[in-house]
């Protein structure tokens, strides 16, 4: 990869912007990026090994802590794997509660990414506004589950906590209040010439590249690859409600932004239908399985970043013999090796962040200490400065100051 006259710009091992431990080595010739090497493993925790020593109920709490953002996605895949291995049937009411929490998580995760994307591009207003409304979503999460994050809602056989009928109207009001801000993001960000100048035609991934890397989620759908585990392999309540898979076609950063914004509207649709169903679908929320039979099971779920995959092997005891976890970023991060080639260093910041990488998900396995402390590391400020300078330059060229985020509400 490294040829003559190339310079290596190390970004990491502690990523200066995403504030997570990974290491990108950018190979550059002048301003152009000609290669990328990705090093992982700075934060292994041994989750797969740990899981072999925990019983099935504890395992769910463990995988909930694989990632702070996808704290329902991993349990959702895990309980399905256990339920398949143990042939456990989940009550219908629990299915609706699972989808409700899953979609709340998707909205707050997409808003988190939207804010970060704005920050990486030099639009700090987008960052502030996206995170301001993310707080509202976290408040709904707290009302539904008792926690802003790490909800502890799922268990093999159902959910741990019911939503009392008296709560439903209040939750619906909070959901309704999200319409206006989401429309504001859709209109102002989608129409802004400066954001379009910074993101259109940048970091393109073609459908063939997506297939080659096995990339998933919004990254794949922005390139027109029509996959979504919620529709393709129905689970929870996704087969019982009406919603659409969001597709774009160009595979650039702009389309990745639009896929995520439009997906939040679909999540709201799903949540509303779940709330209606919870008024009429009554009954138990937990099948209370007493044992998990010997066998094996697969569970997969469309996390905000793409398919999360769990495989569980049971020998009939109360703990798994083998538990394999594969997070979506594991498949998405390698696409950076092609998306970033030929682009400038100023654009590398947003391209490397466009797949919404989640390093703590990708690394799950053993405790290691970083041995390479003598690396020259490009500082967050330098990368940010390059990205912001490009935005400032475009501002002058376009005579436009950036997205006008205002909403009197």
């Amino acid at each position, binding site marked *: 990869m490294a040829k003559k006259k190339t310079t290596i710009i190390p970004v990491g091992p502690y990523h200066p912007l995403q504030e997570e431990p990974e290491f990108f080595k950018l190979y550059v010739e002048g301003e152009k990026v000609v290669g990328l090497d990705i090093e992982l493993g700075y934060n292994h925790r041994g989750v*797969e*090994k740990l899981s072999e020593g925990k019983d099935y109920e504890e395992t769910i709490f463990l995988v909930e802590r694989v990632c702070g953002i996808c704290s329902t996605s991993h349990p959702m895949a895990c309980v399905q794997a256990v339920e398949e291995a143990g042939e456990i049937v989940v009550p219908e009411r629990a299915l609706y509660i699972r989808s409700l929490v899953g979609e709340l998580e998707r909205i707050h995760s997409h808003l988190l990414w939207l804010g970060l994307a704005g920050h990486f591009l030099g639009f700090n207003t987008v960052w502030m506004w996206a995170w301001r409304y993310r707080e509202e979503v976290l408040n709904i999460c707290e009302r539904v589950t008792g926690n802003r994050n790490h909800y502890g809602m799922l268990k093999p056989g159902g959910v741990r906590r019911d939503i009392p009928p008296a709560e439903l109207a209040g939750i619906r009001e909070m959901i309704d209040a999200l319409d206006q801000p989401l429309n504001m993001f859709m209109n102002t960000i989608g129409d802004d010439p400066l954001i379009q100048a910074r993101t259109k035609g940048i970091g393109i991934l073609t459908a063939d590249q997506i297939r080659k890397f096995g990339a998933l989620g919004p990254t794949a759908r922005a390139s027109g690859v029509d*996959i979504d*585990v919620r529709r393709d*392999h129905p689970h929870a309540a996704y087969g019982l409600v009406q919603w659409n898979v969001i597709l774009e076609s160009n595979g650039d950063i702009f389309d990745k932004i639009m896929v995520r914004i439009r997906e939040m509207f679909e999540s709201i649709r799903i949540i509303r239908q779940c709330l209606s169903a919870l008024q009429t679908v009554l009954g138990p929320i937990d099948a209370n399985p007493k044992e998990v039979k010997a066998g094996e099971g*697969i569970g997969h779920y469309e996390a905000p970043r793409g398919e999360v995959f769990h495989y569980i092997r049971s020998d009939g005891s109360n703990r798994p013999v083998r538990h394999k976890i594969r997070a979506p970023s594991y498949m998405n991060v390698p696409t950076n090796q092609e998306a970033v080639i030929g682009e400038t260093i100023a654009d590398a910041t947003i391209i490397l962040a466009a797949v919404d990488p989640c390093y703590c998900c990708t*690394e799950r396995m053993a405790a*290691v200490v970083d041995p390479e402390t003598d690396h020259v590391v490009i500082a967050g400020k330098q990368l940010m400065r390059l990205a912001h300078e490009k935005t400032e330059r475009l501002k002058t060229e376009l005579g436009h100051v950036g997205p006008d985020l205002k909403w009197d509400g």
Partner: protein
Amino acid sequence: MSGAADNHGDETVRQIKSALGERVLDFQQRSPKRIYLEVDAQNITETAAVMSDELRGRLQTASAVDGPQKIEILYHWAFDSIGLVVSVRTRIDREQPEIASITTICPSAHWIEREMWELMGITFAGHPDMRHLLLLDDWPDGKYPLRRDYRKD
């Protein structure tokens, strides 16, 4: 809708059976959306080519399970348009755990095979870039954390 999907599912099952033929040692359809089949380790690249190139399956991941004599590897293939997951099982000798790499057919297997090598100690013949992915570069040789007999020193 579901009826049509079932028909497509049956069609894919028929295609898998006819393309792999005698190479399928064991075939279990545990539900309309889950198939587990076993092939000999020698046939793994041909099987991967059938799954990926002929039938347009998506490699979800591969995982290894350590056993007393054999190490089992499961390659999970998703057929998203019909909601089917086919898990291809193969068993290799625990004393000489070697199998052909499928990276030429499926570039997405790059990291997956590197991970299985360092954690389970499986050698992937023909992998173009075999080095540590998750563990340290100076991790001791012959110590594989996900093996049953692994002990922390």
